[in-house]
């Protein structure tokens, strides 16, 4: 996956988890929590969806790496490079 594809994949997941959120203006370099109403249950779901869709494992200690779209790209790029 390219970096843009990773961003798109994460946004698609958020759209499924939180269909009531407007995702059209999400900034890549700002924490998702500061732009959207996402709680710890929702972050668990992002991780669960990454596993369900792409077989990617994110251990609990690494949840913080998914804070913003940019940090998602940095963290997920090596894990998704062949997907």
């Amino acid at each position: 996956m390219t970096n843009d594809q990773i961003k798109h994949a994460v946004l698609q997941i958020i759209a499924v988890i939180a269909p009531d959120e407007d995702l059209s203006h999400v900034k890549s370099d700002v924490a998702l929590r500061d732009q959207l109403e996402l709680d710890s249950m929702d972050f668990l779901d992002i991780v669960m969806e990454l596993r369900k869709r792409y077989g990617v494992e994110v251990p609990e200690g690494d949840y913080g790496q998914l804070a913003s779209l940019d940090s998602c790209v940095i963290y997920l790029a090596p894990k998704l490079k062949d997907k």
Partner: protein
Amino acid sequence: MAQTHYDVIIIGAGMSGMAAGIRLAYFDKSVCVLERHYAAGGLNSFYALDGHQFDVGLHAMTNYVRPGTRGAPLTKIFRQLRLTPEDFGLAPQHHSEVRFPGKTLRFNNDFRCFVQDVVDNFPAQADHFVRLVKHIQEYDELDLEAPPRSGRAVVSSFLSDPLLTDMIFCPLMIYGNAQERDMEFGQFVVMFKSIFCEGLGRPREGVRRIITALRRKLREVGGTVRMKCGVQALNAEGTRITSVTLDTGEILTADTILSSAGYVETMRLCGTDHATLAPMEGRLSFVEIISILDQPMKHLGHDATIIFYNTGKEFHYETPKNLVDARSGVICCPDNFLFDKPLPESMIRLTCLANFDGWNALDEPAYLRAKTEWLPKIQQEVLHFIPDFRHHVVYTDFFTPRTIQKWTGHLNGAVYGAPEKLKTGKTPIENLFICGTDQGFLGIVGAMLSGISMANLHVLKRAHAR
């Protein structure tokens, strides 16, 4: 040959069991939900008699918020279960009342109206009440590790008028308290937020609509539900359940068991002796009279959705000495929700505290006689608060704590389960967890949240940690 091993077996196709099942099946766990009854829903279910449709439980769904309200428990449910507000089709209440001798408090789904009504009715308590509300709003009721505290003690440390204290406790206790006389403060906060800060709603089709939505979703995500399939025993070896014996004698196995049958009920299935468990049993149960009317109550001039009433000097929330305590209770008029079209049949529901042991000890003729005796007594009591509807009644059903135990399997017909809640859901057995009423989130939304939380905590997060 039918499948006999699952990642997770869930006992009970009530709100919590089905919600847990949806979560787990969605994330690719193999899930089997076992339900003894032929209808799903558990403590919030439905039945038909002589062509009339009735709901059990659900007078109103607490935690009602408008679709899209951020951070609310109902919004969390929709997200976690991948459902939409249209799936439940909730219509808001008109307004509800707490009626005590000489005082009425009104509330609707706008919390500010309730605060104003308290301030108007109890001007001397205004500052105290506002401070109590602030304390409630800042309290984290979802903290599973919080130590239990007496709700009466905390609330009385803010309010100095016992009448106001009783009037606030009355609806919160009647709609969700498993403890006699007092209420754990965390539970109080859950109920206060769900009824006063959020509000009441109902699908026009009643609880069937919610159950249908959950069952459809569970099927879509690949969960198995087996109806008329009771569990006879949970077979333990050491500290693990190794297999599940069904009433039919069939044996199933699972890595994890989630039970919504109640804590005492579940531990009995594991063979724990009854005497050890007896002190933990829930006791509080109710009778309910559901009457079909030839016209809606609003045609008689009554537009309140729910009235929580008390006719005595003080409010007593405890197992009655008689079969029924008609001094306090609930008057629910399902027609008085703001539906887009009228209900197919108008009705009124009257609910009062009742004594399980008393009802259970009666032989069949005495049981029927007791119903005939209590029906007019309860009707008489509620006529203090609503127009006389008795000559508009075309059909009546009357259910008792005995009926509730028979159909839900909850001991003593205890609708809110055991007084001590197991917030973490953990039992002495390492792969057996409790969800639903005895885990401690309350109401229909609470029950679903309970199933979701326990599925997340004990299965999805763990699988992930491995």
